[in-house]
């Protein structure tokens, strides 16, 4: 924690963007992150960047699967026994439970164990169906013992907040900044973003990555305020005999959702909500557009 704080100013980069905008950039959660603000507020940039970056790093430290001192690691080490989790973690688990319930089990923070057999490296190496069958008993939120604040994770199961962590971090950073800063800003963590108000240049223009290219905006969305989140990764797939297997896995079968869009972008009032809607849309496969249309949200689907 201390070393991150010390290197804070080195970890933040200022970039001048078009249309009179300035970006404070940093890396977190394996994504390029930035806060955009009108260039005339340059003097605020480092302070604003620090608030946002510190929150992003805090959420990452706390919920990363890869850090031994994260809450997730502590939970994993305590498998089979009941532990008391802190308030923030409890609220996240409550949220995950709601999402599990309303998606009839399609959104499940225990489905991460499937990573052990699925490697979406664009090859044709599909896992053995028997290996998938072996993992299915380890999936299912209803198998957890969860009575806030007490959690018991059964042996061999895993928790993964990756499905909502980045969006949650955006909303948290947004909340911290919005209470102390009244000028226009936009927080963008790897394509999940939220803005408080339109910049003087009229709207925030957001490039959404095109399915088959990297960092080349194919589609520019305009946003005044609110949140956008994108789910899907066009580079993570397997291809066998002409069939594409996207990386969106159905936790009930352990197999990729057939006919899932390559990416879905949703606009909503919070990034968490937008992210969940886009994830649920991907899980609907061929019915993604119908689902989004019925939800009454603004959305963009790439197939």
């Amino acid at each position, binding site marked *: 924690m201390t070393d991150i704080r010390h290197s804070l100013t080195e970890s933040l980069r200022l970039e001048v963007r078009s249309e009179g905008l300035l970006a404070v950039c940093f890396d977190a959660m394996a994504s390029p992150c930035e806060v955009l603000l009108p260039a005339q507020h340059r003097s605020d940039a480092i302070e604003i960047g620090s608030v946002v970056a510190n929150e992003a790093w*805090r959420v990452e430290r706390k919920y990363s699967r890869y850090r031994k001192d994260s809450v997730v690691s502590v939970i994993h080490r305590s498998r089979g026994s009941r532990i008391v989790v802190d*308030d923030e973690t409890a609220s996240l688990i409550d*949220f995950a439970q*709601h999402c599990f319930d*309303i998606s009839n089990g399609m959104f499940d923070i225990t489905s991460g164990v499937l990573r052990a057999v699925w490697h979406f490296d664009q090859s044709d190496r599909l896992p053995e169906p028997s290996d998938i069958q072996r993992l299915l008993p380890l999936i299912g939120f209803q198998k957890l013992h969860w009575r806030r604040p*007490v959690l018991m994770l059964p042996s061999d199961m895993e928790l993964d907040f990756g499905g909502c962590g980045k969006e949650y971090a955006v909303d*948290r950073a947004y909340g911290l900044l919005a209470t102390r800063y009244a000028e226009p800003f936009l927080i963008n963590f790897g394509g999940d973003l939220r803005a408080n108000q339109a910049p003087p240049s009229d709207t925030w223009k957001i490039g959404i990555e095109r399915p088959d290219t990297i960092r080349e905006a194919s589609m520019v969305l305009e946003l005044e305020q609110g949140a956008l989140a994108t789910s899907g990764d066009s580079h993570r797939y397997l291809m066998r005999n002409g069939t594409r297997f996207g990386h969106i896995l159905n936790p009930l079968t352990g197999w990729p959702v057939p006919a899932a869009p390559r990416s879905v972008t949703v606009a909503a009032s*919070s990034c968490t909500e937008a992210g969940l809607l886009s994830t649920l849309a991907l899980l609907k496969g061929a019915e993604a557009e119908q689902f989004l249309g019925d939800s009454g949200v603004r959305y963009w689907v790439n197939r």
Partner: protein
Amino acid sequence: MQLKPGREVSSAALRQRLMAASCALLSATGVRAQASDASPPFNGLLENLSVDSAVAYYHEDGRIQAVEPIVNVAKTFANGDALDVNFTFDSLSGSSPNGALPSHSAQTFASPSGKVGHSYTTAPGQLPVDPNYEDDRVALSANWTTPVTRVTDVTVGAKVSGEDDFFSVTLSASLAHDFNDKNTTVSGGLYNEFDSLKPIGGAPAPGSDYALADKTGNRTKDGVGILLGVTQVMTRNWLSEFNLSVDRFHGYLNDPYKFTSILDASGATTGYQYESRPDQRLRKSAYWENRVAWDSLSTALSLRYMSDDWSVHSETAQLRVRWNLPGGQSYIEPTIRWYRQTAADFYMPWIVETEKLNSPYESSDSRLDAFHALTYGVKYAHKLGPLGPLASSEFNVRVEYYQQKYQNPSTNLADLQGLDLYPELKAVLVQFGWRY
């Protein structure tokens, strides 16, 4: 919670629920943003331990005063069990009404011990009170709650309370069950209380003449009660709770230090007799509370109705408003409480010796009289920041003013004219608290 195949949620409804869930997540974790940075996610012994302590000073105008320290310690264990321990110490001193009426002449009473020389005299026109009233009470209670399933809790508890002349043990057990996505909690419980009375000088025979001092050692009473409750989350910021309870007490239900003036036909006091209450009391009560929270305001409105087979019926209405001050560290909480009760059917402020009593029971205890009362109070609390030795603890101060008025018809008895027979009661409570 269980997966129900075939139960399809419409997209629009799903979005509503998702919005609500997101809001709940983001608002629940909004506070103390950076505080969680400072502390590791799991701590040792102090984690999930809360301490609520207070010292209250209670003063009745011209009568009792009490100092009461209270400590409540609650801890949730990693396996989901929760322990709640409450310790109270009461030190009462001052003057307590003995039940006799004021009179135009001085009245002399023996102290309950009956020892020679232990007596007190009440001046003409004054309400007779025992000026040497003194009592220390120690009470300790503990409740243990354990989850038996994901949605069912069992609680068992015990309470002991002791004074010089009184000892009480209560055992209780209850079951709470959540359903409807934990939006509804239904609970049921039973309790059993055993009391033993060891009045100074012995327990007087009910209805016996004061001068005879017909006292017979120690007595007991016991009670059994049942409680049923429903708590319902109505909306995200509205919680409603409804409870019904019935209890039945049996045994020596008299106050051994209370007696009733006996008057002649003109109203002059000629003697006293100890009170005589029925040896059973069946009480039913209903309680309804609604708590509603807005941005910086939250309110709790509660209504209680109680009725017993002594014809005492009471109603209580209480409104509490908590106003969170800007900055989020302090709040002010004004309270107003209104109370009214009817008299017990055997309540009589005096006995006229020439009139035949139409009941074997009588008591002049003003707590069984008809009265109404108003309490006004305000509490101010300040919570310290997340750093420092007393981090995140709350200090609070509460002041309440209580005013009680009796409702009795006037009397024609000549000797009682010009006397304040039912003096109003006023009391002040000041409480200082610390909670962690």
